[in-house]
């Protein structure tokens, strides 16, 4: 796991030293947010008290946020907080957002500006999200994730598409047109789910887990 400290580090002696990097950074973020909101609402009418305009409340709130930011910033220079510099990890946020992002661009045909995405449907978008997202944990193992993907995806198809009647693209369009041209949405969904479940059983049956035991039980540590 990659971790890094923030560039701001507490310096030793008095004067204008950063005592709590967490609060200094928090304060700066709030001030930046306040300025951003003010800039965005700059050319909107503020209105009068009788007819409040669209910009009045956002601007008032932005000013208050800025004040909070300044207070936090000052506190960050004056008082030490119990936590040290925040430790960030990159692996989790990176892989999780990639996984969600891939899901978003593969689930359905969609125009992002000049870009157009191809519809792959849940059958591909789902397992991809699970497997890539799963590697956000350092303890991820491919076989477990594959099994999870092959069981959870058809489960979600049946739950959302069949039981709750929410239309979700199941297969890439060309594939569903080639395979299920005469079938209704629900029956093609059921067939796909059945195929995926079968695949899960086959994987479970014919591949060996490397660790020997099926699913390793979470670590137990007895402290006495």
């Amino acid at each position, binding site marked *: 796991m990659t971790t890094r400290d923030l560039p701001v580090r507490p310096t030793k002696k008095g004067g204008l030293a950063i005592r709590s990097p967490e609060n200094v950074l928090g304060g700066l973020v709030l001030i930046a947010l306040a300025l951003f909101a003010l800039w965005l609402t700059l050319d*909107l009418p503020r209105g009068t008290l*009788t007819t409040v305009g669209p910009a009045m409340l*956002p601007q008032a709130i932005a000013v208050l946020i800025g004040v909070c930011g300044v207070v936090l910033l000052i506190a960050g220079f004056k008082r030490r907080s119990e936590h040290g510099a925040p430790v960030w*990890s990159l692996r989790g946020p990176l892989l*999780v*957002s990639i996984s969600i992002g891939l899901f978003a661009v593969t689930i359905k045909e969609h125009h992002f500006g000049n870009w157009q995405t191809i519809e792959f449907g849940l059958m591909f978008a789902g397992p991809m999200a699970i497997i890539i997202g799963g590697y956000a*944990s350092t303890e991820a193992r491919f076989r477990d994730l594959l099994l999870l993907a092959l069981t959870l995806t058809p489960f979600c198809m049946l739950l959302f598409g069949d039981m709750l009647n929410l239309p979700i693209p199941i297969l890439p369009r060309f594939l569903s047109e080639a395979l299920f041209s005469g079938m209704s949405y629900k029956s093609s969904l059921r067939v796909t789910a059945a195929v995926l479940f079968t695949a899960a059983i086959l994987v479970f049956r014919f591949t060996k887990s490397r660790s020997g035991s099926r699913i390793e039980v979470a670590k137990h540590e007895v402290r006495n």
Partner: protein
Amino acid sequence: MFDLLSNLFLGFGVALTFNNLFLCLIGCLVGTLVGILPGVGPIATISMLLPITFGLDPVGALIMLAGIYYGAQYGGSTTAILVNIPGEATAVVTTLDGHQMARRGQAGIALGIAAIGSFLAGTVATIVIAALAKPLTGLALVFGPAEYFSLMVMGLVFAVVLAHGSIIKAIAMILVGILLSTVGVDLETGEDRMTLGLSFLFDGIDFAVLAMGVFGIAEILRNLDNVETRDVVRQTIGRLLPGWKEFKQAAAPITRGTLIGSVLGILPGNGAVLAPFASYSLEKKISNHPERFGKGAIEGVAGPESANNAGAQTSFIPLLTLGIPPNAVMALMVGAMTIHGIVPGPLVMTSNPTLFWGMIASMWLGNLMLLIINLPMIGLWVRLLKVPYQLLFPAILMFCCIGIFSINSEPVQVLMIAFFGIVGYAISKLGFEPAPLLLGFVLGRLMEENFRRALLMSRGDMMTFIENPISAVLLAISVLLLAVALLPSLRKNRDEVFTE
């Protein structure tokens, strides 16, 4: 009195239909599940399941979502007792004595007394809700926009004062939430505000997207940072039902816990989290043998467990009667109600009596179910603790993606949960809490609406908020509370309550 009975009768008529009973059971089961699993909380779960409720009728949907919330209070104690980590934030105190009891081979008794205490507290809380609903709704009906605005200000101040951690950070988060709520086309003038020209922001930030990002996704990211070790008690769970002696010992703490929980739950702020702390401190203070606490005192399990369940349930009161969510879970309930076209507030009781009383009646039925779910089936739940987190979170991830996509088949919203997930992760790294943000977001829209309406009615005179007696009192309470909370001496006291 007769009114109350006939209303409850109506409620049970609704709640006892097969469909609603089934949904109540599902809610309780899911609630117990997420309560038991550390790292998955009711807030994340309810936001994940919001899209699913589209396909249900509103009464059933709300019954199920409510079941998740109070079900999680039961489940949280199981993990606290057996594994020594709170399954839920509200079960933190239970780890102190509950786990010690388990160590001494009294796990079953601890679990039993926690479930029975929760059930008794839930029963009382249900009655409290039913009894207070009518008068409070009557009160709310005389409220004008000025009173509403001030009431919401007071609610937010309460939320700030009762939140843990830095007060200034809690205020900042609420303000950011309000700011986010103003994004989108202004309803009165039709001008778009802060949308950056992005068409998907014209309707404002979707509530489910914000909630799922800041709670669902960000929670995954936070959990991935802390590798936990689970310290499952290996001894047998032992006798489940507490004996007469234990029951007599626990009776008074259960009563006191229920009382504390019911009162703190009604107040805005997170009563269900605060109440067990308050109950534990009280039990320790009035005990003849305070040294037994922390070493397996049954009072230290019975009191807080009753308190958190009572608090979880009475926190529905401000939502159902005044339409004001007192905590983040209730903010989600507002979201669920709006999805179904119900405007939470005093009118719900008269315009949707079946929904209102059905939900209240279902709470008692749910508590009864939970007693059964938790006691005889405990072995099954304990086995669930063995599901490792590295398999749990990809499932949550997938559920979030599909759930948010299914709301209106909009891939952009899926991308937004990733964005808010990162935002939620970043703000918690900087020591901010996401719950006030969500509360501010929900109340923000209502506040702006009422603020404008009040000024319109008074022809732009700000004095309307002070000249109006009820509004003035509410604002005075807010100012006083905030001032008191910021006083250094009292702040120390407040921190002690939380660190104990």
